[in-house]
């Protein structure tokens, strides 16, 4: 199963790069191109987009012709959806809670939720860690570095 996955991964990678290249090229045509002497804002992105498309096709090409390599780990060999979601939720909660309730709530959530992502984490260990880091963060960023985000606020 391994090698086929590695190949599939290169198809995906090449396809993605090609698509991105084509997208950039077409998007750059909406800006004015200008001439080589007086380049408009669209010229350089168009060159890059074309180059990206070319590289994408080359990646696809090597995926088709090349032997599947063994020493690359296959696509998503171990899925940790819960942990990934927890990590991403950290900064997202930081934005939301920071705007609504201020730094303390934001910091606590930003540590607590990612900590839950670890398989061996318990509720208690996560709360302790989050409380500790929040205290440290408040002391360093609010008291010492005078960050303008208020510690507590209610702002809907």
């Amino acid at each position, binding site marked *: 199963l391994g090698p086929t996955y590695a190949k599939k*991964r*290169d198809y*995906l*990678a090449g396809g*993605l*790069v090609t698509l*991105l*290249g084509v997208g950039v090229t077409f*998007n750059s045509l909406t*800006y*004015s191109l200008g*001439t*080589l*002497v*007086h*380049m*408009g*804002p669209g010229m*350089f*992105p168009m060159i*890059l*987009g074309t*180059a*990206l498309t070319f*590289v994408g096709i*080359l*990646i696809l090409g*090597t995926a088709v012709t090349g032997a599947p390599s063994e*020493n*690359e780990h296959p*696509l*998503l060999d*171990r899925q*940790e959806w819960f*942990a*990934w979601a927890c*990590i*991403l939720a*950290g*900064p*997202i909660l*930081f*934005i939301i809670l920071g705007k609504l309730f201020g730094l303390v709530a934001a910091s606590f959530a*930003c*540590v607590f939720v*990612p*900590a839950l*992502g*670890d398989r*061996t984490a318990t509720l208690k*260990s996560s709360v302790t*860690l*989050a409380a500790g*880091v929040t205290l440290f*963060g408040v002391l360093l*960023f609010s008291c010492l*570095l005078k*960050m*303008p*985000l208020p510690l507590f606020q209610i702002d809907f």
Partner: protein
Amino acid sequence: MIQTALTDLVYGFGVALEPHNLMWCFIGVLVGNLVGVLPGMGPMATMSILLPLTFGIPPVGAVLMLAGIFYGSQYGGAICSILLNLPCHPPHAVTCLDGFPLTQQGRGGAALGITVISSFVGASWGILEMIFLAPVLVVAALEFGPGEICSLMLLGLLAGSTLARGSPLKGIAMTICGLLIGLVGSDVETGTPRFTFGIPDLLDGVEIVALGLGLFGIAEFMKSVNRLSEVDTRYTNVTLRDLRPTRDEFRRSVPAMLRGTLIGSLCALIPGTGPTIASFISYATEKKISKTPEKFGTGMIEGVACPEASTHSSVQGDFIPTMSLGIPGDAVMALILGALTIHGVMPGPQLISAHPDIFWGLVASFWIGNIILVILNVPMIGLWVKLLTIPYKYLYPSAVFLVAIGVYSSGNSMFSVGEVVLVGIVGFVLLQLGFHPAPMLLGFVLGPRLEENFRRAMLISRGDLWVFLKHPISAVFVGLCVLLIAMQIFVRLRTPKVLPIETALRAER
């Protein structure tokens, strides 16, 4: 020439020994050593987190600190490799091969002692190289017109993307993506907003801190969560007395150290080949010329001394093209250049003459920083080793918080925190698809300058694309680019011959 270099160096020590600069240098190497020791933390993420905090201090202090984090983490990374067999810092991956067997034989302390000596020797040579070579390069570079700068940048980008780890094609794709991300925002000449998708916050471009932290912070945490197993702390009982190598060990490592230093300093001169490649090459060389190559991998002290010396000499040498030409060799250097730009210092050949305090202060601080590191690592080795036992499950949530608050403080806007989340997701998908994110940062930093110089070159030559071949210096750079591509094609067409150590390391990662 030696006279002027010495005068400048004395001036540099004056700058670096100013109390506040000394403090920033100390904080830098301390934090660097700390993150180097901790498994799963890297200098890239740390530098990006601390970058916003440097906005309030003068550029000299900021650069001294950021550079300190980079070379400080190299000292710490070796501890992690030798005692835990965790190749979490790429330049020290080869050190595991002989360092860990030594630890199992109870000579881990001696390996660490040799590492500190080799590191200091390697670093000292790298610094000397920088003192004498950088000003020479500058004299040449000051003659460069926009055409030459353009082809030099092209060479730097191409070398950075094809010689680094992973598939060269994917590296080039990442570089182009980075160049494109660098274009986001208002066009410098016409003010036209490009790739902003109508979002006003993007008019000033993407924050370098957000890009760095997304790629090297969030994406890395997602990759390693639940993956770093509990560390084996059986061997982490090292005290100061254990550091002393035996006479025989010392005698064997001195020549290895010197060879490693030489290889490292040569690698530093080729853009794109950073410390990681230097350490691989030096290990392979050392094994080849050894009388007992079969013993490598079972705990040869030479296999520790050589790669460590070459890593450190190449780490210091990496600063040469960055500071003298304004062309960074890898992502770390790109970040340092980005920091300089944020502080209003234009990178390029004029940097040394326009800001001698930054350049010579930095050089002098390398010496001071390396001495501090030796002091930190020798008597306090027990403390660093204790740090190895902090589990990753406490580290990464704290790091996520530092990422969020760090990027917030870079512009006091929640928008950049959102940027980090988005870049993190994209970076994670790219990692899964086998792309390495480092060239992206390289492209991002050079993008705007590449475009500007390209436009200028075309304006001067009246739209003649052959101008890049008509000027001899520029033609040499273009020729080297072609050579680089030809070499890659050649390697591709030949049957792949992967070094056995490389396969071993890949399997471990």
